[in-house]
């Protein structure tokens, strides 16, 4: 049995590519020839993606290491570097988003597409031709992919090419307590890194209701080493919830001002904070909506090492 899986999903439209921890669900719209060419390009590019990353894995798990050489690895470094002055971060914080960006770029080089997305376990690289839009379902709890409580409509002219969600429930470790932080940014790699960092800031340091454990006690090769990651959160008061969200929202506001991200939605225990969501992307609907591009349930992000 080959290591990689490449198949169309039962709907006959979306392409599913899986290799080790990378699990992509890809959609593309255009002429049949274009979609076929794009899927072929995706498969061809995907064939070596994991091997390229693993070749530089020790480097990518280090803070402020040497410059990596691979296409995806370089994007990981570029996306995470802006955060390095503020917090501990390794390029692995952007691995899922950067992988999605790499595959989408290969598809767009191969063919003209009206709309396309590469969904790497909830970290999504997007393409929209002029005049097109995407409706994106937002998850409160990334691990329960059926629970969607919002929808964002992204227009081509918004220039948003990346959406990522991070929180303590996903496979990724989080230093914070946010249920979910969804970030819209210029690329999936940037969104991925930022979502991780904002989720880490949604926190109540030293609070007794929060159980934490050393990352390496759970995953021996985590890039977070002995840093404490959140394992459980007991009931919090509404004031505490707001306080934790304030921490995260302040950080998100700084990132929007600096131009690193476009917008963020922060969720904790039923409360939501929106940052930078004005103008064309303000359309968050509160009611459950159609699940246009929700993450595939089996699709997990390769971010177990990321956070910090």
């Amino acid at each position, binding site marked *: *049995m*080959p*290591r990689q*899986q490449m*198949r*169309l999903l*039962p709907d*006959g439209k979306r392409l599913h590519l899986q*290799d*080790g*921890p990378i*699990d992509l669900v890809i959609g593309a719209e255009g002429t*049949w*020839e274009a979609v*076929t060419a794009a899927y*072929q390009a995706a498969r061809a590019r995907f064939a070596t993606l*994991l*091997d390229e990353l*693993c*070749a530089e*894995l020790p480097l990518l798990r280090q803070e402020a290491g040497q410059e990596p050489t691979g296409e995806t690895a370089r994007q990981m470094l570029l996306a995470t570097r802006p955060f390095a002055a503020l917090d501990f971060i390794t390029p692995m914080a952007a691995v899922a988003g950067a992988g999605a960006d790499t595959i989408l770029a290969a598809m767009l080089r191969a063919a003209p597409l009206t709309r396309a997305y590469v969904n790497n376990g909830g970290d999504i690289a997007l393409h929209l031709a002029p005049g097109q839009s995407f409706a994106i379902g937002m998850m409160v709890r990334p691990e329960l992919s059926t629970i969607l409580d919002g929808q964002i409509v992204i227009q081509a002219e918004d220039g948003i090419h990346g959406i990522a969600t991070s929180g303590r429930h996903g*496979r990724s470790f989080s230093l914070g307590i946010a249920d979910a932080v969804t970030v819209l940014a210029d690329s999936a790699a940037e969104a991925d890194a930022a979502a991780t960092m904002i989720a880490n800031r949604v926190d109540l340091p030293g609070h007794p209701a929060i159980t934490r454990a050393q990352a390496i006690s*759970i*995953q*021996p*090769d985590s890039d977070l080493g002995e840093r404490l990651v959140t394992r459980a959160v007991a009931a919090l008061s509404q004031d505490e919830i707001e306080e934790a969200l304030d921490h995260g929202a302040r950080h998100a506001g700084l990132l929007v001002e600096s131009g690193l991200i476009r917008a963020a939605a922060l969720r904790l225990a039923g409360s939501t904070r929106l940052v930078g969501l004005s103008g064309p992307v303000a359309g968050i609907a509160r009611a459950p909506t159609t699940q246009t591009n929700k993450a595939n349930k*089996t699709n*997990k992000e*390769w971010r*177990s*090492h990321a956070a910090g």
Partner: protein
Amino acid sequence: MSAIPAKTEDGKIRCDACPVLCYIRDGATGACDRYANAGGELVRVDPHVLLNKTLAEGQAVVPFGGSVQDWDGDLLHAGNTFVTAIGAGTTYPDYKPAPFIVAAEVEGVDMVTVVTEGIFSYCGVKIKIDTDRHLGPEQASVRAQGEAVGHVTTGEYGSQMLSLGGVHHLTGGSKKEGRVTCDTLLELCNGKAVELTIDGGSTVIVEAGKAPIVNGQQEERMRVGCGSATIGMFAKQWQGKVDEVVVVDDHITGVLSEHQAGKLLGIPDTGIKLKGRKSTPGRYFQVAEPGTGWGGTDISDPLSILLPFDAKVAKPGTTMLMVSTTGEHAGYYVLDDALQPVETDMPQALQDSVARIKENCEPALSTVLFMGGAGGSLRAGVTENPVRLTQSVKSALTYVTCGGAPAYVWPGGGITLMVDVTLLPQNAFGYVPTPALVAPIEFTLRLDDYATLGGHMDHVRRLETLAGDNNKRLRVATRRDSPWPFNMQPTKGGGR
């Protein structure tokens, strides 16, 4: 399953399923969530492994109906009876001798046929569908009951080709995908009709040896040639009977007055203009989209591929025949004073030429070839040293048949064979729930050669003794179009 992974002192294991090489604690999964550490053992946590395990534990062969009937009591006549592997059972995965190793004397030489039913996880069918209609883009998924069971592969002259099955669909996808793939292969191999839908294309009903039915329409004829070739073949017959002929074809549409054949005959320009991309004079690519209309295009009105006639050249009263490459569609037109083609009754002479095109198109069929590879354990059922059987087949000492039908053995390593499923007796194929197909396979060779290659000599039974020990055998007539296996001088590559 990969080799037993390295274990560290504290119970962590290092997963080697992919290059991430995760260290996994007992009870935890790796970064992928697909591999886990269960008490120090690396296990796969999706259903795929469980299926493999049942196979490894030796699943009973599901019996197939209709292939075994009461023995009629006649004596077997050595040399005139060839024992096929159908219903013989199998030994997989035990390396024990094949169920039947039968010796018979043929023209004074003892011949032996080793008979077994192979379980083929690596198998599939190649389907040739004689049609010019667009069934779907190359590489598009082919579905049965909604599950991907194969894909469209490179087309052949006048035919579309599908490749179904293979280990990827049988065991590499979901459980349902595997089951549906196995069902589909079994039905096709046993000569049943199967409905297949192609992503971005058509629905086609395929039955080995029968006409394909594309989108509900039964295919009648194969085209005689592309549109350009048809112009070349019939130009002379059209000369003087019509001013212009357009042979509509999805591949190359031909135009008589511009075509080399028309030029040679001195046929004058008509001012005709076509859509599409001009290749060489009188030959046009892409006059329309592929489809199930005229000549494998998507059009139902042939005039839709024409641009307005060139007013400087065209004359009112010009006559034009438009015909598809199979002659199934045809229309006759006369240009009116505004140079618009107007459909008119077709003169008898042109009706005859359309009938001639039709006559030259052979009946369209779906043909199904089973293709599979005989694995090491199957070969071990034949000889103690499996590679010797491969070598014997390659060096033309051993003749390979499937249910008595001649099999083409691919050159190169292993024993990978192809056989026309219509040449096998009915219901010759079975399946195991692995899922995998069970196909009969027989190896026929001289008894002394069999001994040389390390055959299971102590298991060889004389043909005459078979009647007594098992009265559950079905005798079938041999097919006139299959060579008698004992008469075959196996050729290099094991072909017919």
